[in-house]
């Protein structure tokens, strides 16, 4: 039996948003088919560190447990990813867990991703259809477009692309790849396209599209395989055309 087999975890912990972080080591019994979350649950069940001292249970965020909600993202052995799909058998030991550095830490491995949701509000990542009467069905979307737009819609705001981006840091206000790709998604929708110009205008600054430095870590890191750099390049084209239109004037004003 694998009674004596253990898993070693080194976890970067933080008790309070304003307190310094520290590392704590844990040894937990091995079970087959464990993921990082079941390992964390084991620590929660018996919160004793590797020195045999009782400690507070490690805190983390989780939701769907099937890599579609994005809540359980953390840095696992240096790579930002979802802890639900990080299988212990595939990880090098000791397993190092740390919170993503791009976001403020709430506690231990749980971070505050509010900035991403604020960015989605800023870029108007929705399709306005509310009104005082039924507008009827919208225009149809070509199937070929729907297929690539669907790929963009897989974004779960997990924050991995922001963590991977060298231009998203404490020295810059760059909103990161995720909300930019959402601009392309909603601009591709036949009804959403009616607000295309407005969305483009909101990302035409240093915090927006211009913050990209083409390091392309985002597209390599995205757990959903979203073509983030294609979205950014496509938006570069759209905003270049948009700025010509708005400066020289064409179809925006009489």
């Amino acid at each position, binding site marked *: 039996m694998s009674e004596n087999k253990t898993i070693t975890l080194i976890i970067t912990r933080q008790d309070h948003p304003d307190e310094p972080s520290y590392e704590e080591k844990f040894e937990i019994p091995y079970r087959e088919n464990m993921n990082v979350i079941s390992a964390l649950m084991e620590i929660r069940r018996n919160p004793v560190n590797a020195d045999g001292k009782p400690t507070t249970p490690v805190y983390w965020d989780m939701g769907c447990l099937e890599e579609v909600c994005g809540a359980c993202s953390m840095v696992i052995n240096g790579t930002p990813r979802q802890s639900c799909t990080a299988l212990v058998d595939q990880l090098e030991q000791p397993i190092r867990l740390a919170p993503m550095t791009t976001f403020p830490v709430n506690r231990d491995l749980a971070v505050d991703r509010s900035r991403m949701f604020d960015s989605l509000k800023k870029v108007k990542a929705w399709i306005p259809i509310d009104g005082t009467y039924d507008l009827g069905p919208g225009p149809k979307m070509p199937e070929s477009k729907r297929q690539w737009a669907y790929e963009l819609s897989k974004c779960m705001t997990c924050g991995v692309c922001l963590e991977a981006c060298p231009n998203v840091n404490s020295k810059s206000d760059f909103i990161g790849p995720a909300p930019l790709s959402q601009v392309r998604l909603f601009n591709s929708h036949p009804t959403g396209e009616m607000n295309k110009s407005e969305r483009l205008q909101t990302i035409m600054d240093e915090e927006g599209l211009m913050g990209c*430095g083409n390091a*392309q*870590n985002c597209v390599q890191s995205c757990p959903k395989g979203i073509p983030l750099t*294609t979205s950014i390049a496509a938006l570069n084209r759209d905003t270049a055309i948009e700025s010509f239109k708005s400066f020289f004037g064409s179809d925006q004003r009489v």
Partner: protein
Amino acid sequence: MAGTRGYVNRRLHSLLGVIPIGIFLIQHLTVNFFATRGPEAFNTAAHFMESLPYRYVLETFIIFLPLLFHAIYGVYIAFTAKSNLSNFGYFRNWMFIFQRITGIITLIFIAWHVWETRIAIGFGWAELNYQLMEGILTEPFFFWFYIVGVISTTFHFSNGLWSFFVSWGITVSPRSQKIMTYASIIIFLAISYVGVRTLIQFAYGI
């Protein structure tokens, strides 16, 4: 609006790097390459450039002002990045960091180079001819300083050209970006050869 200014600055930074600075770089390396045909050929080519009409206007608006803007804004861009190569050792991430490092090296090199040549000539401390560059480059330290400076400049231009094509939405698809990567490598090798070959001519007369 500050936002609009940031957008225009970035667009301008990207544009000026290629037009006119990149074009000037290729022209400059090409004219200097005349040195490989001997001192007379270099002097004739250099004097032709020196005696262009409204030269100060050309120098100011094609070289100095664009270069100054690109350099100052570029330093700001370089220092707002935070390298994360240890965890993300991808090719483009390396290029991202090299672009920033070579930008800083190129700035130091060009500042020194302009001081030693154009400004010295302007003040009458030196005369524009083959012997000026020969005198500088026969010193081993400056020969290697120029080698590093020139290769850093050609890298910054070639890789910058790749970014330019992305930043203006010309290469959108991953495939076109990949082909542009190969093209930028060829451009880098070609103009590096032109630059380094000229330096060897000045330093060793071969």
